[in-house]
């Protein structure tokens, strides 16, 4: 609407040249895998020059729809209209030729090359001999007309996450794509960087240079930047419209339906509790041997959740790995209840230290082992599974597994199913069953809800709260600030390997945390 108004007021002079934004429409898109309908009869309309949000839970069919538009998948039925003309997109190259570009959640740049090199090699018509001088000149000229720019001559690996994301977007504009699909583009950015980039893109769509289809589940970004939205649930179109006319509650109801989510456990209040987990001067290196965790001190009390916020890649995963035994300390010590602690099997059992890592199939399970075996990781060397020292009985292992499968409602064909055949939510439940079914004194949690649907997320968050209320000291690392704000008693912010900001949840807010995440405090 603002775009049309601007167009009427003055003839548009696009900084990008004569090409205009592209409109795109899907008609009756259907994709069937085997017997599963991943996408059923989805029709959405993205107007040229609009900023359109595509909402839905994990598994709702957003990526399938986008992959059909991009030509990675061939739809079983249905078609794509581009600027009103039916266009068959048989492969990603066709999508690129008609001007549809995609920015993925994770970076696709070559880290060792500079921005210039990354842009030039991304072109379809790279000459065999590249005249770098000429290319640089034309890039400089192009960037002068762009709303934002990035350093062109340093290797991409030395750029900040926000700059890399800008470069990903610039790459698509450089390739002259006028319909951009952004797949959760802000998950690697600070709130400030996210707002900046989305704001700049919004000015480009308003000017009619660009159309954007953004996959997101952050309502805040959707209401702030998107003109229109569409909602998918279980592969079907549930509705959509003009963002300004629909409340967040309404959108969220469209996304999850009338399903009942598990009630969040109430936060129990504790009097002064003893310190259980003490991180004293922890330092560690990343895989390249560079300092990643820099003298982190943190004390966590019984019945307390301390949430560590931060942009991913600021040392949080390294810190968690030192606690779970996946990474060596270069200096510092852990204490549990004032006694030295190192992550060996004996100490884990003695101090009742448990963990819920991110992506549990990757970090806490063995894919090819059965559900029963995976459930026994904590208990296989103790009675009743190991009655005689060193020997193992499969009978009690399966019996225990059946018990846990029932208690935690893990959906599996049976205890002998390889765990890799279970859905993400059920793998997560199996890990919860393994780690939380006995008494927990210390719980180490990293991005527990990554890639899960709302029901599973609600389940896991209330389980974590239950453990806290049961007196466990909980260390929670999450890239999702909302999760931290919801669960934590205290918030710590990690930036460039350091924790310089710690505050009780009642004495801080999103803006302060955001600044600390960016390294200002």
């Amino acid at each position, binding site marked *: 609407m603002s775009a049309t108004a601007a167009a009427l007021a003055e003839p548009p002079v696009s900084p990008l040249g004569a090409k205009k934004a592209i409109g795109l429409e899907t008609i009756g898109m259907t994709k069937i895998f085997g017997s599963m309908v991943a996408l059923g009869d989805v029709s959405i309309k993205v107007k040229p020059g609009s900023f359109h949000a595509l909402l839905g839970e994990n598994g709702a069919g957003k990526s399938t729809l986008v992959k059909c538009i991009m030509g990675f998948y061939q739809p079983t039925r249905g078609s794509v209209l581009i600027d009103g003309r039916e266009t068959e997109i048989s492969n990603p190259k066709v999508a690129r030729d008609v001007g549809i570009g995609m920015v993925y959640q994770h970076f696709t740049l070559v880290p060792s090359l500079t921005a210039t090199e990354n842009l030039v090699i991304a072109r379809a018509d790279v000459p065999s001999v590249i005249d770098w001088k000429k290319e640089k000149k034309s890039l400089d000229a192009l960037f002068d007309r762009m709303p934002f720019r990035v350093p062109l001559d340093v290797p991409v690996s030395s750029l900040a996450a926000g700059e890399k994301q800008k470069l990903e977007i610039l790459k698509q504009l450089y390739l002259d794509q006028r319909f951009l699909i952004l797949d959760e583009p802000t998950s690697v950015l600070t709130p400030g960087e996210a707002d900046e980039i989305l704001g700049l893109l919004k000015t480009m769509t308003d000017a009619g240079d660009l159309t954007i289809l953004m996959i997101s589940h952050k309502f805040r970004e959707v209401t702030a930047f998107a003109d229109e939205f569409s909602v998918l649930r279980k592969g079907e179109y549930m509705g959509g419209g003009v963002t300004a006319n629909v409340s967040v509650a309404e959108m969220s109801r469209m996304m999850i339906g009338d399903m009942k989510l598990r009630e969040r456990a109430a936060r129990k209040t504790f009097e002064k509790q003893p310190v259980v987990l003490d991180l004293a001067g922890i330092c560690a290196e990343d895989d390249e041997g560079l300092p990643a965790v820099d003298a982190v001190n943190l004390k966590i009390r019984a019945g307390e959740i301390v949430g560590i916020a931060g942009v991913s890649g600021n040392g949080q995963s390294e810190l968690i790995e030192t606690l*779970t*035994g*996946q990474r060596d300390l270069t200096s510092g010590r852990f204490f549990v209840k004032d006694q030295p602690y190192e*992550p*060996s*099997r*004996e*100490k*884990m059992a003695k101090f009742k230290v448990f*963990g819920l*890592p991110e992506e549990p199939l*990757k*970090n*806490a*399970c*063995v*894919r*090819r*082992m059965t559900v029963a*075996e995976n459930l*026994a*990781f*904590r208990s*296989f*060397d103790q009675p009743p599974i*190991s009655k005689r020292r*060193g*020997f*193992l009985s*499969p009978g009690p292992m399966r019996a225990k597994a059946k018990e846990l499968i029932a208690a935690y409602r893990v*959906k*599996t*064909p*049976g205890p*002998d*199913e390889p765990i890799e*055949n279970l859905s993400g939510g059920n793998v997560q439940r199996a890990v919860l069953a393994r780690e939380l079914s006995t008494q927990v004194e210390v719980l180490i949690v990293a991005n527990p809800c990554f890639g899960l649907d709302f029901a599973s997320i609600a389940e896991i968050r209330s389980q974590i709260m239950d453990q806290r209320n049961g007196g466990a000291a909980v260390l929670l690392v999450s890239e999702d600030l909302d999760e931290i704000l919801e669960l934590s008693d205290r918030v710590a912010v990690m930036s460039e390997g350091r924790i310089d900001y710690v505050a009780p949840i009642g004495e801080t807010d999103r803006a302060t945390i955001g600044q600390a995440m960016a390294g200002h405090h």
Partner: protein
Amino acid sequence: MADTAAPANGFALAETIDRFRRSSEFVVIPVLALIASGLLFSIFLLLVGKSPVEFFSLVWRGGFGTAFSWQNTLVRASPLILTALCVAIPARLGMTVIGGEGALVLGGFAAAAIAIPMTSWASPFVVMPVMFLAAAIAGAFWIGAVGWLRHYRGINETISSLLLFYIAVSILNFFVEGALRDPSDPNKPSTAPIGAENMIGPIPGTSVHWGLAAGIVACILVWILMNRTTFGFAARVTGGNVRAAQGQGLPVGRLVVISCALAGACAGLAGYFEVAAIHGKANASLIAGYGFTGILVSFLARHNPLAIVPVAILLGGIAASGGLVQRRMDLPDATVLVLQGLMFVVLLVSETMYGRLAIFKPKGA
């Protein structure tokens, strides 16, 4: 998914069928791979103008047709069983160790080297167990070092075990051509004989030596170790996902080194039996390629210790028929190596088929 409301019997039956479907995959795919490699090899034979039918019937006769050929086959199978274990045990930890031949050579050499100074004064009841232990320890040390280098120094175990094989051969040559050379043997540089009284005889009633029995016992013990002990469970967790193993506080380094040492001990024993049951001394005859064929055996058996025995017998039979094929068909001795090589390549290709064939999927999953 099985309906939980179904009668208990029906549920148990469906569960059994599903388990059978899944495990049959591990039999059917290697068998199909063997047949496919046989067909490919037939094409090769046709190209050189020979009859595949004649070839395979000779393999049958030379390997399995008579009591004599069976014994020949079993004699060749026994070192293969032990060297295959040298691949299968580290494979459970996700490692590809291909240097079992080095542990075999060194084990055989150690057994001979320790026996020779003892022959003059010690009884065979002392010499034989000492040789046995020396071979196992030498092999354990050799492949244990591979595990240590892998875990504590990040050195690729495939490369290091291969290079250590060359070092083992050099050590053998250094001693049999130097300090330990038997001057009375003009033909082939060898150590002095260990003496007939220290040789381990055949299994009564056969010409097959005790190495076969030792190999079968070792396979059963390794199966129990891997499937019925906490050590084996921890090793499988480590092999399946190191990060998960670390997250459970398992002593990954210790598991890696101990497993490799056990593997090396098996290959070292293969060397012991070659010396104490066949050659009677250590020389370059130890380097007969059993360690390398053992790799093929272990892969064909999908690193399952119990499957190693029949697979080793099959490959032992093919090797045993080599001489007959050479004489009757005027084909070079290396022809059976071509067949082995083809089998290995086809087998590796077939690895990609697991989980892709719908017929092995449990119903409704």
